[in-house]
């Protein structure tokens, strides 16, 4: 691990934010994974579907149940990790330690990506822990031997990691941490879902598939109407590229501005 990356990992692990968010992600993911599992159980008891816990779609939606909240929290970590440097005037320390600005920002991006992966694993692990009792009690299967399930797990982790990058880009672009946070949360919880809802109701799947949450849903092959997911999602790899573009866009714009401007 390079010095810049190691420094940034230490920077994250030496405040309480990372593990506070980790605990939140675990608990919220478990709660959100229990929702589709419970709905499936009810439907099975009512005879709507038979043996739901062998259905790959239902199993995948339990594993990635926490994704919708975890990705927003991951974005918050991205915003705060950069925003707090502006807020407390500590960015100069990073610049003095790694004066090549692109190298310094890559170190920050790398460290955030590592924690994004950890958050992703935590979210999916919480989903899997919730799935186990449902599967065991209903003669189901965890389907871990199926490539589609494994791909869904990996992409679930990756999608959450990519959202930390969206947060980092926002944090660089908007130097005021509070404004960046409010904006990020409003975009994630209000603007984006409302726009997605309109696109969903109009059945404009092409546009829905290029929204950040639409791309995430498509990447995870989620087609649930509850999440305003497109009924004809993009292929998972194309959705992954669209999401990567969403996180690269603010990150690249932030990178350009951070490289040019003087350090406050």
């Amino acid at each position: 691990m390079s010095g810049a990356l190691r420094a940034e990992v230490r920077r994250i692990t030496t405040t309480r934010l990372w593990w506070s968010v980790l605990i939140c992600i675990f608990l919220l993911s478990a709660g959100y994974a229990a929702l589709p599992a419970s709905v499936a159980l009810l439907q099975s008891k009512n005879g709507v579907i038979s043996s739901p816990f062998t259905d790959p779609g239902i199993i995948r939606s339990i594993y990635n149940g926490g994704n919708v909240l975890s990705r927003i929290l991951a974005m918050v970590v991205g915003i705060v990790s950069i925003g707090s440097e502006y807020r407390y005037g500590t960015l100069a320390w990073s610049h003095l330690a790694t004066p090549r600005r692109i190298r310094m920002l890559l170190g920050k991006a790398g460290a955030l990506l590592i924690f994004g992966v950890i958050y992703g694993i935590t979210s999916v692990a919480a989903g899997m822990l919730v799935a186990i009792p449902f599967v065991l009690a209903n003669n189901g299967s965890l389907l871990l031997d199926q490539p589609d399930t494994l791909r869904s797990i990996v992409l679930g982790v990756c999608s959450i990691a990519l959202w930390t990058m969206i947060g980092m880009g926002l944090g660089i672009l908007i130097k005021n941490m509070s404004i960046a946070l409010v904006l990020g949360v409003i975009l994630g919880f209000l603007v984006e879902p409302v726009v997605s809802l309109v696109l969903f109701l109009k059945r404009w799947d092409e546009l829905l598939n290029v929204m950040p949450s639409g791309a995430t849903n498509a990447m995870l092959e989620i087609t649930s109407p509850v999440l305003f997911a497109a009924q004809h999602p993009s292929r998972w790899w194309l959705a992954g590229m669209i999401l990567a573009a969403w996180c690269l866009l603010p990150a690249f714009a932030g990178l350009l501005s951070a490289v040019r401007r003087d350090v406050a």
Partner: protein
Amino acid sequence: MPPIIVDRLVKSYNGTLAVRDLSFVVQPGRVTGFLGPNGAGKTTTMRILLGLTSPTTGRATFGGLAYADLAHPQRTVGCVLDASFHPARSGRNHLRVLAATAGASDRRIDWLLDEVRLGDVARRPVGEYSTGMRQRLALAAAMLGKPDYLVLDEPANGLDPEGIRWLRSFLRDFAATGRAVLISSHLLKEIEASADDIVVINRGRLLAQMPMSELNLGEGMTRARVSDTQAALRALAALGVDVQVAADERGAFLRIPTNAVSEVGSVLYSSGIVVDELATERRDLEQEFFSMLESSR
């Protein structure tokens, strides 16, 4: 070891010049005091030197290399700027973050924390530290990579008398090993006690760069406050010394480079000039500093 060279530095903010064609050299083995009133351009110059601010034109280098081009910046240059820290991070953890790029061990971190008298509070959040403690933590951070150069912007801010004395001896010991120190401070007594050279700037321009020895500090002077300055200057020309007109909060006065107070009094009396004040004074850096500022206006 090569010097720090500031070469024809210019920094303009939206057409306003903060630094104007500034050039000076910080020699190895010496402590160089960087002086100037508020807004003179000291901090801007130091930030350019450290690559935090880009110059409009000109260069600032350590041994011919800009800060950003140094292979191991923290092992080459140690610096103290505004001592900003994340309040929730402990002092020790702050150093651990910096140690990752400086290549310093945990053992060196603990040694440095003891050296700056923060060993007992090293694991407490920096938010609980006083200004002086933060300043000492910044000094420990500057020394993490055992650098060859020190660039310190107001390092004595918030330090108690014991801390200031420690800093003074630390800087002298550091320079004695052939390494270079550039230090800015408003505490002129401190600079007088610790610097070998001074660089004085005002409104971004160089006013003087000289060894402290050339200032002849400590020599006796006579201060005369008189009713008619011009008449007194004419009368004192008979002494054959270079009489200066200076000013303080009470107004203009004459500074005569001689210990012979009675002789000065006699000349003024015989010329019929009313004398409000006649006293000996020891030349110190503060007087020299204000004289330089006065003469630049």
